């Protein structure tokens, strides 16, 4: 245990991440100076790369809580080895997502107007607006998922504290573990609190992306006004999150030599879940087309035709191939257990899910009701730089996390391992008799399974 010296490769990756982040930050500064026109907004397409990327990162953030909370409640054993990385991914992804609505504002320094608090303006946000629902949902999700991550880390940070030789690092770990001592009293309240947090987080996962989907579904725009959006978004979010879990856990597994902890069986189980969510997402795509076809609404029909065979066919087909065709390879057990293929596939999943959000946002706005409104959309270098910057921001935090804190849940992995026993097959009274003590102290019946 304890932390290893950072390798040159880690520094190189961190440097690349920081460079990307600085490129994004510079582009944002330029946009603040020049105004939102620097981004590729062109009426009627006034939502573009920023909102696409916002939904993308919120989606990435969903697998973490799914793996850590929902699978915890279902006692799925394979989560133990991957949930810490997934939880950290969630927190950093939601931190990244939260930047985009602010980036999208013309005057980003006034974002706090969205928070309901007593103010001298005597103005309050509109509680019927999905944008205000977003603020509540995302802030709650960020707070609860970071709390969940931190609470789970406390026993592991205490273990690091107890192993650490460097006094400064030891003191930092001591402060971060809040004086955790592994006492039965601490564990008793910890296990309950963790269970309740998992129980609260489970519906939260479902609610957050449902609320994000309301940003679209509440509008009358063709392609958006559909009741299927909440489950479709939730399934897509879990799918994209699992894709990102593979993207980050497979290199970590290889470079930190964690093959015995993150086993092929764990990856196989996660790949099956990925395949399942891919099928759900594919079904949602088909349902959208079917509903448009059967609705008799020419605007809807025209929009979906334009999406797949018209102006945006290239984006729609990237989405369909990456999200519906390539994941079918996971029906093969051989490919599910091939980490190289899983990693390559995960990149396609990330790409496909970004394009899914692009296909939802841009074609709808560029092809609304009246033909004279129809337009096109081309992102500028500012959009691309900020998109790149978001990846830099995310990976910078993630690299710092895996360097300083345990990427595997040490306590939970220990929990799986049977504890050492002196007399694994004897009851207490039998032990006492063996020790030559006068008679059994308590009348417990002999049992063959030992105390465990």
């Amino acid at each position, binding site marked *: 245990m304890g932390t290893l010296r950072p390798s040159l490769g880690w520094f190189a990756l961190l440097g690349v991440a920081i460079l990307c982040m600085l490129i994004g930050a510079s582009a944002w500064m330029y946009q603040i100076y020049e105004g939102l026109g620097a981004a590729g907004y062109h009426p009627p397409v006034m939502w573009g790369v920023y909102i696409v990327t916002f939904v993308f990162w919120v989606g990435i953030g969903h697998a973490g809580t799914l793996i850590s909370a929902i699978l915890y409640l279902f006692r799925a054993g394979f989560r133990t080895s991957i949930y810490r990385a997934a939880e950290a991914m969630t927190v950093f992804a939601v931190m990244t997502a939260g930047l985009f609505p602010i980036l999208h504002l013309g005057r980003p320094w006034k974002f706090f107007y969205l928070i309901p608090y007593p103010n001298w303006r005597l103005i309050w946000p509109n509680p019927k607006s999905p944008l205000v629902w977003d603020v509540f949902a995302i802030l*709650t999700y960020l707070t609860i998922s970071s709390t969940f991550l931190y609470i789970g880390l406390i026993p592991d940070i205490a273990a690091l504290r107890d192993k650490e030789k460097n006094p400064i690092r030891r003191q930092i770990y001591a402060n971060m573990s809040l004086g955790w001592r592994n006492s039965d009293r601490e564990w008793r309240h910890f*296990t309950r609190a963790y269970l309740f947090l998992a129980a609260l987080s489970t519906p939260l996962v479902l609610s957050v992306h449902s609320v994000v989907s309301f940003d679209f579904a509440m509008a009358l725009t063709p392609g958006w006004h559909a009741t299927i959006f909440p489950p479709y978004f939730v399934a897509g979010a879990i799918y994209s999150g699992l894709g990102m879990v593979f993207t980050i856990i497979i290199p970590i597994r290889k470079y930190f030599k964690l093959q015995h902890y993150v086993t092929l069986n764990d990856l196989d189980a996660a790949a099956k879940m990925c395949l399942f969510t891919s099928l759900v997402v594919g079904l949602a795509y088909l349902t959208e087309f079917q509903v448009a076809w059967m609705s008799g609404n020419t605007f809807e029909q025209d929009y979906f035709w334009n999406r797949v065979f018209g102006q945006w066919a290239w984006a729609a087909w990237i989405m369909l191939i990456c999200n519906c065709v390539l994941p079918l390879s996971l029906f093969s057990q051989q490919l599910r257990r091939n980490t190289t293929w899983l990693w390559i596939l995960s990149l396609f999943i990330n790409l496909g899910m970004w394009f899914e959000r692009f296909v939802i946002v841009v074609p709808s706005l560029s092809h609304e009701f009246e033909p004279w409104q129809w337009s096109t959309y081309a992102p500028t270098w500012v959009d691309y730089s900020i998109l790149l910057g978001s990846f830099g921001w995310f990976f910078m935090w993630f690299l710092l996390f895996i360097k300083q804190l345990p990427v595997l849940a040490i306590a939970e992995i220990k929990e799986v391992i049977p504890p050492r026993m*002196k007399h694994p097959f004897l009851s207490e009274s039998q032990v006492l008799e063996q020790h030559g003590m006068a008679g059994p102290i308590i009348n417990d019946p002999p049992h063959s399974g030992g105390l465990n």
Partner: protein
Amino acid sequence: MQGVLGGFHEIDSAVHAIEDLGKHRFKDITVYTPTPRHEFEEVLARGPSAVRRFTLIFGLAGVTFGYWIAVWISQYWPIVVGGKAIATWVPYTIFGFEVMVLIGGLATVYAMFGLAGMPRLTTTVGYDPRFSAGDFGVWVETTADRADEAMEVLRRHGAREVRSER
């Protein structure tokens, strides 16, 4: 705080020691274990954690506040749309739910801290770093005149190390 600490390699030895300490009327026992073990929960019989009460009470307070703030804002700053209610409970369920999870979740964590006595400034008395690595510790809080008796019980059950601390 004064007492005796016993370190065990094996879980069954630690469990038997706790049972024996109970027979010897040592009441104030703390167990250190690297992972939560049901064996200790059974032998110590502490009862359910009170964290759940905080989760329930603050969750209910959160849902109430969430609905209330949305309704109050609508009444204070009405946005009048013909045929639509000024305040309506269906969309405000989002506020109720989110604030319930937020307040209920945070209350759960603070309750855990409060009930577990965290944050703690020192871990020195009655703790050993080996207890986070794999060993089990039994700390018996006792007066100096009964320390020898407690040490004897711990040793008899196979404690690898027994020491008196204060």
